[in-house]
């Protein structure tokens, strides 16, 4: 390096700077390219019928994906209603009750590994656990698969957010004679409110775009569901099936569904970012 002239060293430095800027620009271009594609190809399919009607066979014009929208909503709500309370309690255990114990350490390790398990593996797990014994694909199995994916995410964000609350707040509450659970739910949870909300929103955003775990649990359907024990239409598997089909009107519907999913997820992400920012300002 010493033998290099200053000019040379400066040139290398400048080159690296250009390459780094280029990398950032490439990432940005990819993002814009994907967003533009989905918007421009999907916007045409989003009309009133898309949200209100059942799908039509290929070639027949009109129709919509109302059943898939409803199915995705139902499964996501069931998954959230199961995973959020359990996950928050488990996160509370890690941060408040079992803090510092070997048990908490072990559960945290398993939980972090669980977050990294590919969602298709969860699909297989639920298939052999629920679909095979129930002798059929079902919306229930789909919802459980989503809940299993959501649970470790909620556990981790809950723990992270509760850990941010300073100990002095807990000690003040306990010193005033509040019980442990009152301290946790009335004081610590209130202090971490925005962070917890953000975590929940991000977990919901994460599962509402999941496809792999639904492929062989909820499967898909072209009808309204009449119960949780039968295959349930959902947006993501519909996108997969329609995009892989040779029919252009189905492919157009797939783009429409992609746009709908993408906008919802990005809205959730931006909202959670906004909430987090407001937290930071307080």
């Amino acid at each position, binding site marked *: 390096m010493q033998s290099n002239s200053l000019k040379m*060293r400066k040139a290398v*430095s400048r080159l*690296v*700077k250009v*390459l780094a*800027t280029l*990398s*950032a620009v490439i*990432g*940005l271009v990819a993002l814009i390219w*994907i967003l533009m594609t989905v918007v421009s190809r999907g916007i045409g399919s989003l009309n009133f019928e898309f949200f209100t009607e059942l799908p039509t066979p290929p070639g027949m014009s009109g129709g919509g994906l109302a059943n898939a929208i409803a199915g995705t909503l139902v499964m996501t709500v069931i998954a959230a209603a199961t995973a959020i309370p*359990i996950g928050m*309690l*488990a996160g509370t*255990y890690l941060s*408040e*009750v*079992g803090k510092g114990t070997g048990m*908490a350490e072990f559960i945290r390790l*398993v939980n*972090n*590994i*669980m977050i*990294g*398990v*590919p*969602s*298709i*593996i*969860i*699909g*297989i*797990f639920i*298939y052999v*656990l629920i679909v095979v014994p129930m002798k059929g694909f079902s919306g229930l199995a789909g919802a459980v698969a989503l809940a*299993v994916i959501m*649970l*470790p995410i909620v*556990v981790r964000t809950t723990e992270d957010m509760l850990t941010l609350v300073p100990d002095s707040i807990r000690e003040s509450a306990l010193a005033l*004679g509040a019980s*442990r*659970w009152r301290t*946790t739910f009335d004081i610590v949870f209130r202090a971490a409110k925005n962070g917890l909300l953000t975590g929940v929103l991000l977990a919901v*955003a994460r599962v509402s*775009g999941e*496809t*792999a775990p639904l*492929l*062989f649990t909820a*499967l898909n359907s072209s009808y309204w569901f009449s119960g949780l024990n039968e295959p349930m239409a959902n947006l*993501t598997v519909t*996108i*997969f099936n329609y*995009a892989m089909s040779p029919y252009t009107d189905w492919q157009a519907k*797939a783009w429409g569904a*992609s746009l709908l999913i*993408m906008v919802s*997820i*990005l809205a959730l992400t931006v909202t959670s*970012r906004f909430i987090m920012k407001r937290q930071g300002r307080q």
Partner: protein
Amino acid sequence: MKFLSAHRQKLPIATQALNPILEKSRNNRGVSDGVFRWATGLSAAIIPVGMLGLIIVMLLNSHLALKEFGLGFLTSDNWNPVTQEFGALSSIYGTFVSTIIAMLIAMPMGIAVGLFLVEWSSPKVESFFGTAIELLAAIPSIIYGMWGLFVFAPFMADHVQPFVNEYFGFIPLFDGPPLGIGMLTTGIILALMILPYVSSISRDVFKMVPSVIKESAYGLGSTNWEVTKYVTIPYALHGIIGAGFLGLGRALGETMAVTFVIGNSHRISASLFETCNSIASTLANEFTEASEPLYLHALVALGLVLFLITITTQVAAQLWLKHLVRKAGGS
């Protein structure tokens, strides 16, 4: 003395009067805190129990294939549902090669983006790119898949592959039909998907480098790049490796994006332009078609292989990060 004893006599009377109230609240607290402990503890216990259940369930539903083929399941590339012969090698190969391509692209790019954000951009630019990175990470994988199949694969077939083939075709890796879909396209899309993870973690660890150290290096007359190379990157190396593990885990198990663009053929070819498959794409494509028990067990066994691969990287990542935290805490 007299004064004290008088008070001593008074005190027990006061506590006696208060006792029932204190006792009651203490008991209540005992019960409710007991419920609180049990409820949180049981919820937390669900996680390791579920993990154990997952492993047991998968072993129980793959033993037919594991018994039938033994280790040959991992070393044979013959996957034929018609003759009921199942070898996982082509899927394992595809999983690893597509992940390697993704890592080769995403690691240097992600580190470069992290550097760009920390060293060379104003707070406004940084916050803008930070949001962009977050959005890139939030896009569901099925949309990456659709975009890959309908937009990026044709782009590769029309513009990139013929060009690469013409100039680098003498290397077997780049010798093949310009189909658009295939191993290389899959690797690039996976790289885009893990780029946000690598770059946001890189940014965070680069930020932790104390500016005093960097300023000393500048003071000695180093250029930007020399400070980066000799100070920032070595300082942040552990964190960068941790980011690599996280990206690795995601790329290995990614299903939908891969299924769209990899081509789904059970074979191993030298060319990166050829179609192939990965463990996850095989599962996504064939699971609902598996009617015979042996076929199903072979697929679950394939899932088990993927599970073991990802769990190994996850455990390695977790231990690595723990080691990192301990080191940071100690120094």
